[in-house]
């Protein structure tokens, strides 16, 4: 069978000693940085990205994927032990997980999170093996017009499904698209917006933007609010769920995984939406409804399964179509471009070892998380206890050196500062940085596809709606925008994000 051959290719790549080592390093570093309070997943990935640039492409992507899972899992650990989640996707876990910790069941909550994540990871690896090839095959039929429309749909959907103001998300996407054009125009060789600065001729490095807006921005935002963390547990014991726990978490894990897999495929979906949806669903169907919010183990199991499933499935549109559904996937695409890989359906057919190696390594990474993190919990607790006033100067040091090492120029450090300032001010005005990063990554690709589409049609813009696939995607994008602007749907959307 095809799936088995593909998975076999994947296993032979991912199980090589070097790749196993990089997977481990990624998972370990990701968790270590991810547990640090006040550092979200995108900031963690951006900070550790430069470490992967020197590696060969397969190992780099495997390590990055490991960093991503690790960071996510680390975030859950922090939100269970300290009621201070760094990332929207672990806000939900904090609701019941932290209550469990207060009742002395921290170990069981952590184990449940790890088991739920691992189960979701296993199912999603299989789902990816089944669904990625047909999706990629379909995408191979796409011409430039279809691609352009797909990117429009991706951007619109990610705006609609993310929280915050639609208008400002649109504004930030366009700013990102414009910033993506800085540098040499691939078509004409002309310099655009480089202001005669040599460092800008190759464009702005996406890591500089991500570290400035997520890294620096988060530090300043955290310093605004006083450090009020209370670490519940100095020592975590009782790491295994009881028989009763097992009975209670089985169904929620299954439901969370399914919901997360579906939501993760959507642009703008990914982890946050999935965990929120799964929690809401459990609250409706669970027999222990009354316990929710007071330490219900289902309230940890379902969202943790869902956020891991969502996170993993968001790799599918990224790897098969080259469309990032969230800022972390945007960073992954940026990393692939730096490695010389053109993201899109070609990746699967031209570089099967890379594609399947990464898919399988995700499962291995999840297994490592399960096996390693429970014994290492003491170490993570120590890391969480580091006071923030000692932590943030250190984070800043790694950001500064990391950004410098991108192309060995201090210009990038100053540029990071500029983006930190801009990001902070815009955030104060209700403009989130995430859509800007998506736009920035997609900007040059969108221009190229639009240019090719219109070249083929001799300048006739109706080519975008005469191709049926392209027309459907543009129509979907338009419908989504109109729906959100309708008052009734708009208020449901606001309600849905209220608890975040």
């Amino acid at each position: 069978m095809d799936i088995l051959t593909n998975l076999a290719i994947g296993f032979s790549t991912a199980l090589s000693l070097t790749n196993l080592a990089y997977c481990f390093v990624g998972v370990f570093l990701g968790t270590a940085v991810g547990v640090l309070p006040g550092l979200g997943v995108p900031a963690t990935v951006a900070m550790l990205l430069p470490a992967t640039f020197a590696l060969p492409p397969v190992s780099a992507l495997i390590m990055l994927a490991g960093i991503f899972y690790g960071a996510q899992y680390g975030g859950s650990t922090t939100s269970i032990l300290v009621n201070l989640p760094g990332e929207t996707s672990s806000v939900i876990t904090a609701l019941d997980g932290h209550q469990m910790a207060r009742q002395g069941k921290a170990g069981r909550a952590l184990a449940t999170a790890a088991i739920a994540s691992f189960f979701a990871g296993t199912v999603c690896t299989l789902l990816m093996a089944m669904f990625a090839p047909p999706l990629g095959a379909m995408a191979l039929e796409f011409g430039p017009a279809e691609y352009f429309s797909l990117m429009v749909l991706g951007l619109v959907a990610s705006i609609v499904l993310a929280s915050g103001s639609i208008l400002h998300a649109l504004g930030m996407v366009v700013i990102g698209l414009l910033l993506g054009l800085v540098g040499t125009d691939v078509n004409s060789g002309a310099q655009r917006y480089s202001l005669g600065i040599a460092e800008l001729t190759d464009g702005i490095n996406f890591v500089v933007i991500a570290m400035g807006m997520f890294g620096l921005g988060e530090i300043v935002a955290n310093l605004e609010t006083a450090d009020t963390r209370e670490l519940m547990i100095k020592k975590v014991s009782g790491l295994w769920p009881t028989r009763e726990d097992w009975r209670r978490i089985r169904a929620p894990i299954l439901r969370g995984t399914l919901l997360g897999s579906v939501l993760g495929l959507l642009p703008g979906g990914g982890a946050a939406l999935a965990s929120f949806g799964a929690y809401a669903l459990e609250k409706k169907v669970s027999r222990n409804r009354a316990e929710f919010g007071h330490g219900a183990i289902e309230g940890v199991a379902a969202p943790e399964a869902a956020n891991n499933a969502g996170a993993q499935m968001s790799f599918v549109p990224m790897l098969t179509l080259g469309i990032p559904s969230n800022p972390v996937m945007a960073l992954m695409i940026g990393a692939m471009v730096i490695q010389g890989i053109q993201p899109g359906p070609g990746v699967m057919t031209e570089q099967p070892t890379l594609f399947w190696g990464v898919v399988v390594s995700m499962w291995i990474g999840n297994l490592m998380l399960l096996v390693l993190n429970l014994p290492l919990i003491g170490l993570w607790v120590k890391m969480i206890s580091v006071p923030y006033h000692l932590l943030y100067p250190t984070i800043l040091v790694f950001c500064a050196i990391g950004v410098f090492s991108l192309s060995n120029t201090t210009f990038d450090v100053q540029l990071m500062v500029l983006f930190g300032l801009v990001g902070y001010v815009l955030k104060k005005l209700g403009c989130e940085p995430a859509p800007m990063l998506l736009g920035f990554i997609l900007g040059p690709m969108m221009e190229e596809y639009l240019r090719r589409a219109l070249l083929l049609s001799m300048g006739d813009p109706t080519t975008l709606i005469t191709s049926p696939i392209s027309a459907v995607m543009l129509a979907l994008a338009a419908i989504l925008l109109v729906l959100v602007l309708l008052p009734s749907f708009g208020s449901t959307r606001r309600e849905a994000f209220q608890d975040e």
Partner: protein
Amino acid sequence: MRLHVAGPKDVWAGLIYIAFGGLMFWGALGYRLGTAGRMGPGYFPRVLAVILVAIGVVALVRGLIVRGERIDGIAWKPLALILASSVLFGLLLERAGLVVALVALVLVSASASKEFRFDPKAVAGLVALIGFCVAAFVKGLGVPMPILGTWLEPLAVLAP
């Protein structure tokens, strides 16, 4: 004088969009436009800049009409210190070298927190951090950062 507007966040964001869009459009005027069928380097940026200005106008108008949230207080002190410390690092790295640049980065940024005390423990931590960075980044990963910069090069003869 303080102008009272209904939605200050929208108004400011709108003005930023209009200003940035306008600037990018003005910049794109210097690039060849081409035609839709044969786009020049100036085509896509102009389209985007116009869209951005339009979004800005919508935001501005909405901010003037619809009541919106106030802007929360901006934490000027941490903002200034964090940004200044990173700027200093950038300026000092090649001139004074990694060690001095790190001392500046850490001390200036740390002073943004109320809890920070410059005590022996902090000094020990700083020394350890600098030692780690020199060992891991310069020696280990080979990032080309001078440990002592051009200003301090005369001191290098003193080193063993």
